[in-house]
C-alpha cells in the first residue's frame, strides 16, 4: 500500500470537511469565498492522491490544471457577486441575506 497516497487522501478529505464546516459556520461573505477555496484545495489533494496511487502523473496533472482553471473562474465570479452584493446591500453579513440562511 502506497503510504504517500494515503497521506494525501487523508489530508484531502480533512481539508474538504473543514471547508464545508467553515462554509456553513461563517457569516462574512468574503470568508465564505475563502472556505470554498479551502474545499478546492482538498479536492486538488484528492485528485493528486488518486494519480499518485495509480502512478499516472501525466493524466492527473492535466486534471489538476483543468480543475485549477475551474476554481479560478469560479472564485472570480463569486468575488464579483460579493462586490455587487455589497453595493446593493451595503453589508457582507449573510444574516441579512435571509435566503442564505437556508
Amino acid at each position: 500500500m502506497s503510504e504517500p497516497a494515503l497521506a494525501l487522501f487523508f489530508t484531502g478529505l480533512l481539508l474538504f470537511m473543514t471547508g464545508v464546516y467553515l462554509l456553513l459556520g461563517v457569516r462574512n461573505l468574503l470568508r465564505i469565498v475563502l472556505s470554498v477555496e479551502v474545499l478546492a484545495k482538498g479536492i486538488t489533494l484528492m485528485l493528486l492522491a488518486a494519480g499518485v496511487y495509480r502512478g499516472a502523473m501525466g493524466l492527473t496533472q492535466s486534471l489538476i490544471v483543468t480543475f485549477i482553471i475551474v476554481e479560478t473562474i469560479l472564485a472570480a465570479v463569486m468575488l464579483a457577486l460579493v462586490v455587487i452584493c455589497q453595493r446593493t446591500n451595503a453589508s457582507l453579513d449573510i444574516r441579512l441575506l435571509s435566503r442564505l440562511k437556508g
Partner: protein
Amino acid sequence: MEAYVGSILLLPLVGALVMPWVSKLGRRAADALAGAVGLAVLASCLALVPHAGTPATLQVLGTNFAVDGLSLLFLVVISVVGFFCTVYSIDYIGHYSGRAKFYALLMLLVFGLNGVVLVRDLFSLYVFLEVASISSYVLVAYNLEFDGIESALKYLLLSAVATGMILIAISLIFASTGTLSFAELKAVLSGGPNPLFLFAAALFFAGFGLKAAVVPFHAWLPDAHPSAPAPISAMLSGVVIKVAGVYALTRIFFGIYAAPSQVLKVFLVFGVASMAAGAILAYFQTDMKRMLAYSSISQIGYIMIGLGLGNWLGIVGALFHVVNHALFKSLLFLNSGAVQFRTGTRDIREMGGLENRMPITSVTSTFGTLSIAGIPPFNGFWSKLFIVLGALAAKNYVIAVLTVSFSIFTLGYFLLLQRRVFFGKLNERWRDIKEAPAAMSFSVICLAAGCLLVGVFFNQVLRGLIEPAARVLLGGN
C-alpha cells in the same frame, strides 16, 4: 453526422465569441445572431433525430464525442427550449442593459449543456457541467437586483459543495480503476460489486441530486428559479436541472452502474419525497414563479419515480416526462414572465381578470396548466400514464396511487393559479395593460402548440425519440 454534431457544439461557442463585435453593429444584429445560432442548433438536432437508434462516436476538432438515443433526446430538449428562450429574450431583455453579454452567456449555457450530454468521460462531464453552472449563476443574478444576487450566491455555494462531492467520487473511482471513460468503467464494474463504488455512488447521488433539486437537496431552487429573468427561469427549470441532474444520474447509474436494485429503490424513495413535498409546498405559494419552481421539484419527482421503477414503461414514461416537462414548464415560466413584464409583480393575490387584457398569455397558460396536470390529449397525460402503468406493472400499487393523487393535486393548484391570475374580476390597476410583445408571444404560442402536438402525435414521438433513449438505458440490464 459529424457536421451536425460539430455545429451543435461549436456554433454556440463561436456565437458567444463573436457576439461582442456583432453587437457593435446594433441591437438587431445581436438579436439576429442569437436567433440564428439557436435556429441552426435546433435544425442540426432535428436532423439527427432519424439516426436516434444508432450510437456513434465522432471527432470534433480532434476531440471525441459520442451520440446515442439518450444524448439525442436531451439535445433536442436543450435546443428547443434554448431557441424559444432566445427568441423570447429579444423583447424581454429590452429593459436590462448588456444585451450582448446576456446572449453570450445564454449561448455558453447551451454550449455547456450540449457538452454534458455529448461527452463520455466523468471528468469532462464535470468540466462542461461547470461551464453550464457558472453561466447560470451569472444569469440568475442578471437583473442585478438584490434577490437575484442573493439566490445566485446561494445556488453557487450549494453547487460548490455538490461538485466537490462529485469530484471526490471521481478521484476515488480513478484511484480504484485508473480510468474515467464510461465504457471502461462499465467493463470494470461488470466484474462484480465493489464497496468503493457504492460509496462513490452515494456521493454522486448527493451531488447530482442537488443539481436536479431532488428533495432534500432542493433548497436553492425555489430562490434561484424565481429571481432569474423569465427566459433563464425557463432554461433552468426546463433544461438545466434535467441535464445537470437527471441526465447525469441516468448516465452514471444506468450506463456505468447498470442500475442495481438498491439504487433504483433510492430513486423511488427520493422521487416520492420530491413529488409530495414539491406539490404541497407549491400550494402555499403566493408568488407565481415560486409556485412554478416548487412544481418543478414535484415534476422532477415524477421523473425519478419513473426511472426508479426500472421497467420499460416506467423509463419510457420518465424520459417522455423529461420532454414534456421541458415544454410545459418553460411555457409556464415564460408566461409568468410576460405577466410580470406587463404588471411588474409576481404576486398572485394582486392579479386577476387578465384574460381579456392578455388573451394569448391566458390561452397558452391554460394549455400549460392542462399539460402539467395530465389532462388528455395534452402531452403530460401520456407520460404520467406511462409512469402509472409502469408502477402497476411493477406491482407497486402505493406508488401508482400516490402518483395519480398528486397529479390531481397538481391540477388543483394550477387551476387555482389560473383562476386567480387570468379569470375573475379585472383588478382596476391592470385596466390599461397590453398583450406581451410579438417575439414573446411567438415563443409561447410555439411552445403551447408543442404541448398539444406532442400529446396528439405521442406515438410518433415515442417511436422516434423516446424509445431509442430508453433502449440505451435498459441495454445495461
